[in-house]
């Protein structure tokens, strides 16, 4: 047992089971998947050349980026305002508001996407209401557009953003904004110079969660976008389960991994720039 007496060894020994699990069941499968994409007889990068030279595939990649970025920006905006209201609410009301905000998370992604089919459909709630008011004379086609995918994605991911930000905003004491005001800062300036920098870590975490979540989503674009709004997730499924072309599917997966990692790294750098303390 003397060998376990050194703290470093003990730390290794204690973390070994978890480490082993991660290596065996996460790293090995991921790397073996990525390895298959470099085995093309025409050269190690042939499958990537196929991807980047195809107008359709690039279109799918850009559309996915676009949807993920727009979803993230809208979620930041809505999530921040909601989280600010929630974090400044008195005790019991705060709990109620948090429950209301995360309530959608209690159902599955498919159910939540389906709800939008019922709301935005030709015979849906929104069309019926607009017809009844007389704003439109015949039903408008709102489904199966990029807009309908973004609406549903925002609805899916705003609760995550709220949850992330409430904790951070609660940690900003009222004294801080009071002090800024007493030193002559207008509310807008106090927000920009005091609240925002302190909220940056939460905003970054929330944005990374929302961006990666919407960039890799499958069910929502499949149900609300269909093949017209094909995204990387749906395209990956098509390659794997319809063409049975695992190499092409792995290539799509590899590109998704790279985009996601790059985003996370860029966001962390941005966080350090905006808030050196938090970084």
């Amino acid at each position, binding site marked *: 047992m003397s060998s376990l007496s050194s703290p470093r060894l003990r730390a290794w020994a204690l973390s070994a089971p978890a480490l082993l699990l991660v290596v065996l069941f996460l790293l090995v499968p991921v790397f073996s998947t990525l390895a298959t994409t470099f085995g093309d007889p025409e050269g190690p990068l042939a499958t990537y050349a196929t991807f980047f030279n195809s107008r359709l595939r690039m279109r799918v990649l850009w559309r996915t980026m676009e949807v993920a970025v727009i979803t993230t920006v809208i979620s930041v905006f809505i999530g921040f305002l909601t989280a600010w209201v929630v974090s400044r609410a008195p005790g019991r009301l705060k709990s109620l508001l948090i429950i209301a905000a995360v309530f959608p998370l209690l159902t599955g992604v498919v159910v939540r996407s389906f709800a939008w089919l*019922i709301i935005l*459909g*030709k015979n849906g709630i929104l069309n019926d209401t607009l017809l009844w008011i007389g704003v439109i004379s015949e039903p408008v*086609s709102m489904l199966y557009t990029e807009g309908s995918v973004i609406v549903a994605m925002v609805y899916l991911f705003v609760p995550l953003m709220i949850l992330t930000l409430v904790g951070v905003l609660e940690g900003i004491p009222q004294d801080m904004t009071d002090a800024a005001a007493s030193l002559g800062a207008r509310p807008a300036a106090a927000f920009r110079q005091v609240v925002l920098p302190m909220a940056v870590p939460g905003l970054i975490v929330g944005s990374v969660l929302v961006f990666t979540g919407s960039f890799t989503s499958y069910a929502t674009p499949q149900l609300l976008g269909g*093949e017209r709004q094909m995204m990387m997730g749906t395209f990956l499924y098509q390659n794997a389960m319809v*063409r049975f072309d695992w190499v092409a599917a792995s290539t799509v997966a590899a590109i998704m991994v790279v985009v996601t990692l790059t985003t996370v790294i860029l966001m962390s750098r941005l966080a350090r720039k905006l808030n050196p303390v938090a970084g």
Partner: protein
Amino acid sequence: MRNLASLSAIALIASAAAAQSETLTVSWWGYNGDKLDANIIQPFKEMCGCDVVFETGNNADRLGKLQARGGKGVDVIFLTDAYSQIGVEQGVFQKVDPAKIPNLENIYPVARDPQGGFGPAYTVGRIGIVYDSATVEPITSWSDLFRDDLGGMVSLPGITTTAGPMVVVQAGMVAGTDAYEDDAPAFELIEALKPQVVKNYNNGSEMVNLISTGEAQITMTQDFTLGSLKNAVPTMTWADLEDGDIAVLNTLNIPTGSENVDLAHEFINFVLSDEVQQKEAEQGVDAPINMNVELAPEQAAMWTYGQEAIDALNTMDYAKMNAHKSDWIDMWNEIFGM
């Protein structure tokens, strides 16, 4: 990761099974589970004195898993012929021994050996056009699907569904060409149809949803969805096409890694038997392909029933279709996915 999880689940099942007598593993969709259990599984268990376990899921998922396991872990697999043809080409099925399936002689010739020795079909379905007769002028031929008065009411089967590539084949036929030889005219027709398409569907439930919410009034689908469609919109009508519907055969195959080959043959023989085929047809589970099945007119109305009806169907050449599928997916995506 799902594959890993299912692999370990199957390993568990396999090790548990080894402890008992013989266990037959059947892979199928999981629809109509109660009826299939009563009509096939329970009586078969009594007959063979063995145990039966299942793997369920859609065609692609189950075939993908079987491929990942190198053909092991399943004794009999139920697939639509478009997918079993892929399995045949991948080499994950073994040839069946007709001598061990005496009931073959009681089924329609078209179902006995659709894929060159790899197993029979146990039911026949048809793919055709359904439309809402309240809002759409009657559709009487495949060319009507490409009419220009269907504005924004069409939902085609997506290229990734069983029926998707058939749209290309039928479009070629309407254009007067063979899509396998030259697919350009077929895709020109499909591109011209694009403004009429509200959304293409990826599975049966999505299609029923499109019809029931009024997004679409015309679609191309397999006959087993007609009941749900009529429940949603009573005026949905199965088009009587002068150039005929398309035959879809559901096949039974024995994977290369089966450890109970004799039992698998026995099971296939049982599924083709007079009593199972009769019960399945009467209860609305599957259309019969056993020639000894006798149905009352109202029972027969829902199925492709009888030699004449079966002979009128068009059959697809899946070997050719699969050879073109990857290109067609790209061309289709170029039209609908840009």
